[in-house]
């Protein structure tokens, strides 16, 4: 073989690896998801359906209406979540992006938590319960305790993380001790914590705000305990985002670089083999559930201390469940969860502007579901697009190490 041929081969192999890799599949799944959403927008559009009646004589009407509704819908999504070109000042135009970041914050943090359990072969549906547990602790610190500036905020954040971690550890303990299935435990604790929280918010001696009668609602968090605004008072984005980004870095280090992460992944790959290798599997389960809930706790801090309105039973905002989709889309890796959280945060931020132009933002729920459905079945995407199977060679890895470290192993 000539040198050129070898290079050509290497190039082809690298190409194949890229196409077979997770990133290509994810991007295609996201595009397909938007396509499915577009189909729903079109078929529920009145002009399009009316145009269908005489489709073969004037197909332009239907197709025009279809194009119109899809571009309007996704255009509104872009305006509401990234950049609003209609705004008169740059500060206002960029506001949607800060909203996306604000709404993505809890999704990223909680998504990391759920992702961690996936890596250990567990399934934590209990994000809601753990979130609420953290909120109970944080609400107590934020409304019933008085501390100086900054310290109060730090104590409240730590309280949230502790509250969530305890819940997770309890579930892990019950699973390890009795063999009860974590799916059932987490679902049941979601309900128990929700009703417990509602009860506490209804009880004047516990968490209910002063002067509130009947309604389950807490006092607004004390000024000192609020997460400070990140970009000044004109945006609602807070330091919660920084917390979430720190969580991403911690998660990456924990899972990819630390011995704990190695043990967690080992149990995830094969619990029997891990046991043989001397890993205490039951203790690992407790640790995994506690660590997972700790990440959810960051989201709990954000929900409690993000705005100065009193906490209500619905303040958990279903983040515990959304986090599952985020973790799935992100492939349970740190950068993946970050990107997935941002995407779903953008969906949440863009919903109101879709509502304004008369397109139900619920279509974004369909997009969300469709994306993860495609992600869940790699062979389906491969078959649809004729992508190659996962490659066993590692040409890309060699290429990368040649570029970054120059330490080429032969």
């Amino acid at each position, binding site marked *: 073989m000539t040198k050129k041929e070898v290079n050509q081969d290497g190039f082809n192999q690298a190409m194949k690896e890229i196409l077979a890799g997770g990133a290509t599949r994810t991007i295609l799944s996201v595009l397909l998801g938007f396509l499915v959403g577009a189909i*729903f927008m079109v078929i*529920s559009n009145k002009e399009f359906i009316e145009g269908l009646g005489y489709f073969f004589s004037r197909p332009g009407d239907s197709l025009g209406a279809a194009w119109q509704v899809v571009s309007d819908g996704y255009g509104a999504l872009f305006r509401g979540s990234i950049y609003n070109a209609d705004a008169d000042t740059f500060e206002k135009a960029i506001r949607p992006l800060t909203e996306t970041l604000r709404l993505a914050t809890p999704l990223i943090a909680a998504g990391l938590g759920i992702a961690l359990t996936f890596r250990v072969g567990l*399934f934590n*549906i209990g994000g809601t319960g753990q979130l609420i547990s953290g909120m109970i602790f944080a609400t107590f610190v934020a409304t019933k305790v008085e501390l100086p500036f900054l310290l109060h905020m730090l104590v409240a954040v730590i309280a949230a993380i502790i509250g969530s971690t305890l819940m997770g550890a309890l579930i892990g303990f*019950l699973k390890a001790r*009795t*063999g*009860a*299935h974590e*799916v*059932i*435990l987490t*679902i*049941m*604790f979601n*309900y*128990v914590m929700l*009703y*417990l929280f*509602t*009860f506490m918010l*209804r009880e004047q001696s516990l968490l209910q705000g002063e002067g509130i009668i009947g309604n389950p609602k807490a006092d607004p968090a004390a000024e000192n305990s609020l997460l400070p605004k990140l970009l000044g008072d004109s945006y609602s984005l807070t330091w919660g985002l920084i917390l979430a980004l720190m969580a991403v870095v911690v998660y990456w280090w924990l899972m990819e670089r630390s011995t704990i992460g190695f043990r967690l992944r080992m149990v995830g790959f094969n619990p029997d083999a891990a046991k043989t290798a001397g890993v205490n599997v039951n203790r690992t389960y407790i640790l995994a559930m506690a660590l997972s809930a700790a990440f959810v706790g960051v989201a709990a801090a954000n929900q409690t201390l993000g705005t100065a309105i009193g906490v209500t039973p619905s303040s958990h905002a279903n983040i515990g469940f959304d986090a*599952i*989709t985020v973790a*799935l889309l992100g492939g349970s890796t740190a950068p993946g969860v970050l990107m997935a959280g941002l995407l779903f945060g953008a969906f949440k931020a863009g919903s109101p502007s879709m509502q304004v132009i008369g397109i*139900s933002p*619920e*279509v*974004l*729920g*369909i*997009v*969300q*579901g*469709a994306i*993860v*459905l495609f992600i*869940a*079945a*790699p*062979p*389906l995407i491969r078959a649809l697009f004729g992508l190659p199977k996962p490659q066993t060679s590692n040409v890309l890895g060699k290429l990368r190490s040649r570029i970054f470290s120059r330490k080429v192993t032969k």
Partner: protein
Amino acid sequence: MSSLVTETKIGFKAPIVMAAIGLVVLVFFGLLGRDGMANFQISRRQDAIQLPDVPIDSSLLGVVSGILMLALAGFSLWLTLRNRKTRMWSISIFGFLGIVSLLGWLAADNSVPVSFIAGTALVLAVPIVLGAMGGVMSERSGITNIAIEGQLLTGAFMAAVVSTITGSFTLGIISAMVAAALLSMILAVFALRFLAQQIIVGVVLNVLVIGVTNFLYQQWLTQDSENTNFPGTLDIIKIPFLSDIPIIGPVLFENRITVFAALLIVPALWFVLFKTKLGLRARAVGEHPLAADTVGINVARTRFWWVTIGGAIAGLGGAALTIGNAGAFGREMSGGFGFIALAVVILGRWHPISASLAALLFGFSIILRVWANQVSPGIPSDFITMVPYVVTIIAVVGFVGKSRPPKAVAVPYVKG
């Protein structure tokens, strides 16, 4: 097999948990209970046979049930000491006593409309029961089904919309079952053909169904609810003679077709699963697919059809939500019933009848919250609502423990 080879030790969890609950009943509902008589109304005014009301002193009822429950705990302890399992019937009686004492405690100086509460509990439990049957069918054959929530919601939506548009409840029910079966087919195909993680596909299908129904509800049903979402409810059918039996009559034999269907499907599924060749094959596929394949059972096909038919049954459960109870479709109206059904499957150890009894507990708690608010407004209803979930946790931790699911559940089978 395992009982012959290894002698398993029966743990003391069951008697301990039972004794603790019995003590709670004895002390809080009995000794520290509330004064006044609880008036158990056996007959309704419109019933053919009238039986007199039974007034019982509230705290006396608590003491008596507490002592009986402690006796059952003692019986369980006796069995455990002889290394025998606590019997199902004793747990059922235990639960029944607990419910009666709770009713008596709540209704001090008030009446307990027995057949109304039991009947409503049954109606409310039907979606959970049918959802759980769908879960049992798919998990027994080896496929984890987290998508019960989605199947219920699909059934509820289709039943309401198709019944309204066509004006025929029959078509509504059929389309609910077919649509939910199609959803199950997606689960089956992803699990069997694409070897996707079954739990993940289930969760995703739920997200997708919630998304689609929310969108259609917002975009379509709310705009024109008169013509799309106004089905009303099925007629109540009275079975002659049987419906005149006190208590049992109005509860069991005076119902909508959805309830009757549930009452028939549960024993039928038990029979098919445990007494026929068909059921044996399904269980073989769920326990040991390789062995089943070796003797010539088509593993993939068996799983596919059990999951699909299970989906159809869950779809019927969804129809029970709309045309069997509420009379219209509402946003995300399954409200977690699918997840409760999932819990009920495990709580009932993948057995149709035990699972249905567990589902009744949840139906009971829903009506209890409403009713308790009326008779004793002072009691925090959040705690009463919490009861079934706490009971499930206690049961899963205490009784079921290392619940052994069908061995091959969630494990894809690739023909070697």
